[in-house]
């Protein structure tokens, strides 16, 4: 064990030297490529460099850069990395029990990037994810859109927007999850009233700031919650709204219209009952596919045909795991079950890629394979909608973050002793007692 500190130092140096150097282009050739942007390519080639896609096309029709590292993926299927528009990986949190409206609470300040659930998401082919606080509040906090890069801290996963802020939305909920004993609302009407009051406050707060014209004496005192809601009012961030029952869905649409905020409907168990209204409002839906209806009153009428019905009505439809409700490792299954219930194959595959990219406002950089976009992709053993297919590799911005042939990654993919453990500290300069115990255990298994 004594060599380990030195080994760690070498890794650190290697990393430092590697930074800034232009890496070799990488070529993935021979696979069936499903670019999502455009028709599938039977024998395709994907060229990536510096975390970006340089080219996608048919073998023989793409000029391969000199000195490229060639990956022969003949017989495999290559498609964009999956995007999960609603997940709880990383054991994050939002607001607490002190009240129903807490837009100031940030997932950013709570996430464990070493949590096994994040590695399991990579094993499921997920490259981007919207990590949300729970649905037990009307407003439970600020969500975070993440790239599942190899990470030591949360900063390694963030998606930076052009203005320097972190990409993310605001989690809201209506229906029974946020109806509790005081100070939480007791009814649906009260829930809506509390939310409306809060947005009116935010409007007034925004107006005060505008009237102050930068005069510090006239500016209202800073309010973290209202600042976030102003961003929502200004359309800088999107409301991600948990909602099941058809009347609750319509309430979300009503509030969104009143205050002009951008919203995505999440779960939408009864979306099939009000598909035309959702379509008319031009509001996207993020649907969950659970193995049976029920489990609570609001999901009594949940129906696997919802994505198909919404698609037909012209709604933008994405899927989510709501991990741990559905397992990130089987995210493609949601698309498969939606096809089983009548959705088009095209729509279902878009639902786990580009549709979710649009839902998160990230479609400019991920969600499909096209030159200039981030090199986020997965290598599958066969067709994405088959139960027999395995995710073999997951790449984020040109870096491999999951490889099924790696024993540790395989463990995260299939489960077993140790699969629930957090990923051990990497690139660390010392061997912790925990690492020593774990290595000893590995020998025994």
């Amino acid at each position, binding site marked *: 064990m004594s060599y380990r500190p030195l080994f760690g130092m070498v890794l650190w140096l290697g990393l430092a030297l590697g930074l800034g150097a232009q890496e070799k282009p990488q070529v993935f050739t021979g696979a069936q490529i499903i670019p999502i942007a455009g028709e599938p390519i039977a024998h395709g080639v994907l060229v990536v460099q510096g975390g970006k896609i340089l080219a996608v096309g048919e073998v023989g029709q793409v000029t391969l850069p000199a000195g490229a590292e060639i990956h022969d993926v003949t017989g495999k299927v290559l498609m964009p990395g999956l995007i999960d528009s609603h997940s709880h990986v990383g054991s994050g949190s939002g607001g607490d029990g002190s009240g129903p409206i807490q837009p100031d609470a940030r997932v950013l300040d709570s996430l464990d990037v070493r949590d096994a659930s994040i590695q399991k998401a990579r094993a499921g082919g997920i490259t981007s994810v919207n990590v949300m606080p729970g649905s037990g509040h009307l407003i439970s906090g600020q969500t975070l859109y993440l790239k599942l890069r190899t990470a030591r801290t949360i900063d390694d996963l963030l998606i930076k927007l052009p203005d320097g802020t972190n990409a993310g939305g605001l989690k809201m909920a209506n229906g029974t999850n946020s109806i509790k004993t005081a100070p939480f609302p007791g009814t649906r009407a009260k829930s809506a009233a509390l939310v409306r009051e809060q947005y009116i406050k935010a409007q007034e707060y925004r107006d005060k700031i505008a009237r102050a014209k930068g005069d510090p004496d006239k500016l209202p005192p800073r309010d973290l919650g209202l600042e976030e809601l102003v961003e929502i009012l200004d359309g800088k961030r999107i409301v991600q709204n948990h909602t099941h029952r058809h009347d609750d869905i319509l309430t979300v649409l009503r509030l969104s219209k009143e205050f002009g905020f951008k919203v995505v409907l999440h779960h939408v168990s009864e979306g099939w009952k009000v598909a035309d209204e959702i379509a008319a409002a031009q509001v996207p839906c993020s649907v969950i596919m659970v*193995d*049976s209806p029920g*489990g*609570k009153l609001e999901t009594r009428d949940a129906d696997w045909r919802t994505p198909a019905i919404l698609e037909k009505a012209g709604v933008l439809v994405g899927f989510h795991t709501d991990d741990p409700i559905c397992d990130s490792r089987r995210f493609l299954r949601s698309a498969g079950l939606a096809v*089983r219930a009548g959705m088009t194959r095209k729509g279902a595959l878009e639902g786990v890629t580009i549709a979710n990219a649009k839902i998160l406002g990230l479609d400019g950089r991920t969600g499909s394979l096209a030159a200039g976009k981030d090199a986020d992709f997965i290598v599958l053993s066969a067709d994405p909608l088959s139960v027999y297919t395995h995710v073999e590799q997951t790449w984020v911005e040109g870096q491999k973050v999951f490889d099924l042939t790696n024993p540790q990654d395989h463990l995260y993919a299939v489960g*077993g002793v140790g699969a629930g453990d957090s990923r051990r500290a990497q690139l660390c300069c010392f061997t912790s007692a925990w690492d020593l115990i774990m290595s000893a255990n590995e020998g025994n298994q």
Partner: protein
Amino acid sequence: MKTFLRSLLLLCLAAAPLALRAENLAITGDTIYPMSGPALHHGVVLVRDGKIEAIGTADTVKIPADYRVLQAAVVTPGLIDAHATVGLSGLLNQPQDQDMWEKSSPIQPELRAIDAYNARDPLVAWVRSFGVTTVNTGHAPTALISGQTMIVKTLGRETDEDVVNPAAMTSVTLGANGLNAPDGSPGSASKSPGTRAKAVALLRAELIKAQEYAHKREGKDEAKRPGRDLRLETMLRGLDGTQPFLVTVNRQQDIVAALRLAKEFKLKLILDGCADAPLVLNEIKASGFPVVVHPTMQRSYQDMENLSVETAGKLHAAGIPIALQSSYESYVPKTRVVLLEAAVAAANGLGFEPALASITIDAAKLLGIADHTGSLEKGKDADLALYDGDPFEYTSHCTGTIINGQVFADGPH
């Protein structure tokens, strides 16, 4: 004349339910998996009076003209879920439809599933719509001894009409889920068992009590014999094996504890869950006990932290008899579907035919009902599932479910 007409009417009324339930059917399949022999290509199953009349390839089985013909790409025996709570843990998940867990005491073997099962709960029809025709359902693995299970066809009529075995097993849970009923008020009886050691101690005491009860019941002096005791009567049926204990154990120390108990009391157990099975494969194999493996897609936390989608495949490869199950879910999905669980097992080491066997003939053998269901053989119940493709594929559909010759088209799911 009037009497004659009345007799005729009565005769028709008497025959009507039978006719409704048991049409004469011919089911043709591009591929039929009888599970009693190799797959048949272009096969036919004839059904008469609710039983399988004949099965063979299309060139050997002639379809009578008056038989209703059903076609499918793939035909399998009706699926069997070896451990469920469907019908007791209802769809709404409200207090009035949750009968799988009586929280007043940690040891209640006297609770019968037949007194709680709701044949008309929508989730019974839901699992049926995927081809499930038989379930071993009952009290959930939530208390040390939560109650009994029953084997029932998913016909959705009345319990007494649909039941196959009203008292199949008694549900025992060792490990975290069998401890300390969480909503027991402080100081109440349900504070105990709070530890693994206490749980096993209570279980041993109960088994010894049952043995002593049996001894006293056989005493020479009739006046000194104890009165009937529903609880101990059930324990006795567990001891003599007529109604075996279904022991839910996931951690390896709990699996080993169950085997230790079995040795002490000469019990024949059915092991259930067994997330840690790969750590104690030899011990399980040596016991000879079958395993109802945890749902392949069950969430991995607490005692199930080490579960794997490959567990079923590993147990099967070791030669241990297995069946799959939907188990119990307290939230969503309110029920799992054993077909979908078998599908993921098939794709992760178990393989197609063993996975199909684990929800048909192997499950039937484990439940002791293989003499009349679980495979497509002449004389067995006409329990079949029809699919438009590989039953395990996400995008395939169950296009029909047949139970005792009655056709259900709930789906297509």
